[in-house]
């Protein structure tokens, strides 16, 4: 049914650049444009102009669309009335005492954007008090209920202490849609916080719990679409405040939307929802789809008010601007930063707001300035891509703020920006790659990882579009993929010895932001490797700890047959805490015993025996030592290394305190040539101890001296430490150094 698209036009590239630039802020955007339009002043000017016009064009098309509506009406009015279909007469409102389905209305308890709310009693199948919201006239009952039905399953899945359940929907005898919800008696969150004089920290704590409720709903595929103070009530349960989000699913069902929920405008004059809290994409002519990030925006607006005492946009002033003016403001203008807004208030108002937060006015402003201003603005960014991508992201940043850690709400760096460009544009992929390469300037071996992660990013984006219900998960994966891409990039920088840049990048995307996963293993491995090569041991410990966790998610056979354990063990033993190595070897044995071939056995022995071991542990390894001694081949066809088998057994007998066997296996190991000296020096440390234990002090000293000579010749740092033949693996050297220290202590006290 689809004809293929014509070949890409110059507009394709313009479109790609436009979209990328739009998702970037000030400096980052400028830098991106300068790089892209290098030497093309005309193109640069045009793009800058288009970007300036982004908001205006949206407003222009809104107005044009609106006027089109007026014209349509005019045309229709000019059509002679046909024989009219029977017209439904608007029925009077249902009141207390009335029966609606199984519900009896008791008392009118409120009025909201969509209609009137009653307290009601459910009679069948069981008695309970509920809140029943009757949608006001003028809405198409059938469609409202159909839309509710479409979401009913998702709504039923929601079960969270901070969300009011939605039970049912139906149509009143007079044909108006109604919704039945858990009855929540509480006060709106803003009023409650002020009355209780909550300070900023308490307000943020409470807000984070609201976020948790919303995040839960997002995970079930439900977007609220109308988050505002009056939809978040605080009840007190056993003395602790409990925020509850009400009206879930109602905005979507009740808004006169087309199937993708694209507009909240009922007509040119009527607007469902509350403008100061609505995201630009809810106001715009559906340039973008409303998704979970619209809720992030509204939460940002709520946070703004909780912190500063005023909504981000003044509802009354907006109303006075008229609909077009209002739209333009909401689409084009960023609200003042909370701290700046407060600074412009009359002293008396400011004093009241500060008092309700138990602060001095000046201190309140100072506390909001910086991180909290940043968090609010990031949540309320006009472009969804620039917001926190999930509600969890917002909550996590607030928790970072409370914990005095650096928050994420800050400017994106260059790599972030390039990555962003590349991963958005299949079309100009070649172009994008060219830019990355020119920036990266020949990154060498680690570069493939970056491209690999970028591919993963694209894949995540593709998958993510398939279902809204997967949205939250997808965002998470995308963030993870992005973080991994950034960290791989750091590894690439390290391999180039561009250490400061790598560190700057790692500060921006700390390793801890990446969850251990199979995908992440490669990132941790590469970065750990480069850190180790350049002697950055603290960072290496962090990387290898994460690698170990990530490997738990992978195939155990692959893990134990790889060199990962050989690297993790000495890093933790030498630079981690004592407990970290103990835990590592315990878990490794639990996970990988019994060894089914010599390769596994050799690895296990080396990984587990870098520190003295108790009887139990050695007993556990008995079978393993036999497998190693028999040189049992691997089914996978992986080669075994008799010289390393011999070394591992030397180590095993050393831990068993069996000096004769140590010397026996050491001899076998030493008959094999060793290009780099790692194995020979480590073995000599073991023979030194064995000889010392047998009373041969001279021999012990001789071996130890020889070992020291070899270890002293080891390269200090650099790429050859990544090769088993050139410089020798750094981790093999590390094993030799550990054993040398041990032998030196034992022999020379």
């Amino acid at each position, binding site marked *: 049914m689809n004809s293929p698209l014509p070949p890409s036009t110059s*507009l394709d590239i313009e479109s790609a650049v436009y979209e990328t630039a739009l998702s970037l802020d000030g400096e980052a955007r400028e830098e991106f444009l300068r790089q892209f339009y290098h030497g093309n002043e005309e193109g640069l000017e045009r793009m800058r102009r288009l970007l300036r016009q982004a908001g205006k064009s*949206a407003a*222009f*098309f809104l107005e044009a669309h609106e006027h089109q509506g007026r014209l349509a009406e005019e045309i229709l009015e000019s059509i002679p009335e046909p024989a009219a279909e029977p017209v439904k007469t608007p029925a009077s409102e249902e009141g207390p005492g009335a029966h609606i389905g199984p519900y009896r209305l008791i008392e009118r308890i409120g009025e909201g954007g969509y209609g009137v709310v009653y307290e009601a009693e459910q009679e069948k199948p069981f008695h309970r008090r509920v809140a029943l919201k009757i949608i006001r006239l003028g809405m198409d009952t059938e469609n409202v209920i159909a839309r509710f039905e479409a979401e009913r399953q998702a709504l039923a899945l929601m079960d969270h202490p901070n969300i009011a359940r939605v039970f049912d929907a139906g149509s009143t005898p007079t044909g108006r849609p109604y919704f039945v919800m858990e009855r929540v008696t509480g006060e709106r969150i803003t009023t409650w916080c002020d009355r209780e004089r909550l300070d900023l920290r308490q307000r943020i704590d409470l807000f984070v719990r609201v976020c948790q409720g919303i995040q839960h709903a997002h995970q079930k595929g439900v977007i609220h679409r109308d988050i505002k103070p009056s939809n978040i009530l605080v009840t007190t349960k056993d003395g602790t405040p409990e925020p509850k989000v009400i009206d879930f699913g109602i905005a979507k069902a009740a808004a006169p939307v*087309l199937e993708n929920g694209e507009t909240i405008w009922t007509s040119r004059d009527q607007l469902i929802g509350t403008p100061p809290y609505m995201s630009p994409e809810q106001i715009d002519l559906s340039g973008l789809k409303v998704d979970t990030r619209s809720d992030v925006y509204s939460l940002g607006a709520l946070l703004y008010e909780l912190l500063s005492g005023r909504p981000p946009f003044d509802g009354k002033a907006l109303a006075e601007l008229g609909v077009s003016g209002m739209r333009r403001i909401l689409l084009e203008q960023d609200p003042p930063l909370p701290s700046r807004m407060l600074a412009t208030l009359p002293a008396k108002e400011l004093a009241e707001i500060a008092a309700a937060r138990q602060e001095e006015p000046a201190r309140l402003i100072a506390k909001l300035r910086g991180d909290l201003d940043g968090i609010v603005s990031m949540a309320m960014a006009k472009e969804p891509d620039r917001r926190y991508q999930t509600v969890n992201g917002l909550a996590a940043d607030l928790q970072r703020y409370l914990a005095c850690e650096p928050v994420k709400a800050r400017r994106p760096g260059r790599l972030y920006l390039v990555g962003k460009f590349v991963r958005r544009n299949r079309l100009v992929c070649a172009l994008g790659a060219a830019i990355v390469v020119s920036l990266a300037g020949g990154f060498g071996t680690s570069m493939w990882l970056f491209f690999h992660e970028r591919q993963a990013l694209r894949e995540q984006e593709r998958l993510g*579009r398939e279902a809204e219900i997967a949205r939250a998960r997808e965002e998470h994966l995308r963030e993870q993929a992005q973080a991994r891409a950034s960290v791989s990039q750091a590894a690439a920088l390290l391999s180039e010895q561009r250490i400061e840049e790598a560190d700057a990048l790692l500060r921006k995307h700390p390793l801890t932001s990446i969850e251990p996963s199979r995908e992440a293993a490669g990132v941790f491995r590469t970065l750990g490797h480069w850190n180790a090569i350049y002697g950055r041991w603290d960072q290496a410990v962090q990387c290898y700890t994460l690698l170990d966790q990530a490997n738990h998610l992978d195939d155990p056979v692959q893990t134990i047959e790889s060199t990962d354990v050989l690297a993790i063990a000495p890093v933790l033993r030498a630079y981690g805490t004592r407990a970290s190595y103990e835990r590592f070897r315990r878990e490794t044995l639990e996970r990988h015993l019994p060894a089914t071939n010599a390769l596994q056995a050799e690895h296990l022995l080396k990984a587990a025996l870098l520190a003295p071991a108790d009887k139990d542990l050695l007993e556990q390894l008995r079978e393993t030592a036999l497998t190693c001694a028999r040189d049992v081949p691997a089914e996978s066809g992986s080669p075994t290394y008799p010289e390393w088998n011999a070394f591992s057994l030397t180590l095993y007998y050393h831990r068993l305190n069996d000096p004769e066997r140590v010397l026996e296996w050491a001899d076998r190991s030493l008959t094999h040539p060793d290009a780099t000296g790692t194995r020979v020096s480590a073995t000599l440390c073991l023979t030194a101890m064995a000889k010392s234990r047998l009373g041969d002090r001279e021999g012990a000293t001789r071996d130890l001296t020889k070992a020291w000579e070899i270890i002293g010749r080891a390269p200090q740092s650099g790429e050859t430490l990544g090769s088993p033949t050139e410089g020798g693996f750094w981790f093999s050297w590390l094993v030799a150094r550990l054993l040398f220290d041990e032998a030196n202590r034992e022999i020379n006290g």
Partner: protein
Amino acid sequence: MSPEPPAGPASQLFSELYPQLRRIAASRMALQAPGHTLQPTALVHEAWIRLTNSDDDKRFGNVEHLFAAVSRTMRSILVDRARQRSRAKRGGDFQRVSLDAAEDVPISDDDKLLLVHESLCQLEKEDPVRARVVLLKFYGGLSIPEIAREMGIGERTVERYWSHAKVWLYDQIAAAIGEE
């Protein structure tokens, strides 16, 4: 005053769709509270629903074709109406609003619609695919997923095309009316 059917290829569709639009309008108007505006979006949707629910749809071959046809019809109806109004107000005849608009006169809403129409003609020459997105979105009132289905491209692509086309068109319009 009854609108004249537009000339050209759209005329047949127009005459077929017009009674439908009228019927929809009549039932709609009765439900509308005073002051409500009928959105062309709603009109087209209902026309579409009714047409596809009837046996008539076989005549249109397939739904995609119908979407585009309805959108084109809406476009010509609306542009004609805007042109009539603009002409009546100025008491003169003119072909290209952009010339007229260069004068220091505030741009009327009708002129804005005509400017959209003209800049879209321009876009149709330069990039028919993006122009089609605009036609379906702006005149047809189709949602992003509907456009994506109709054109056989991804939703995200439609969003990008629409977002970029808006600013592309606006840039033309802004130049015509001497802004920026």
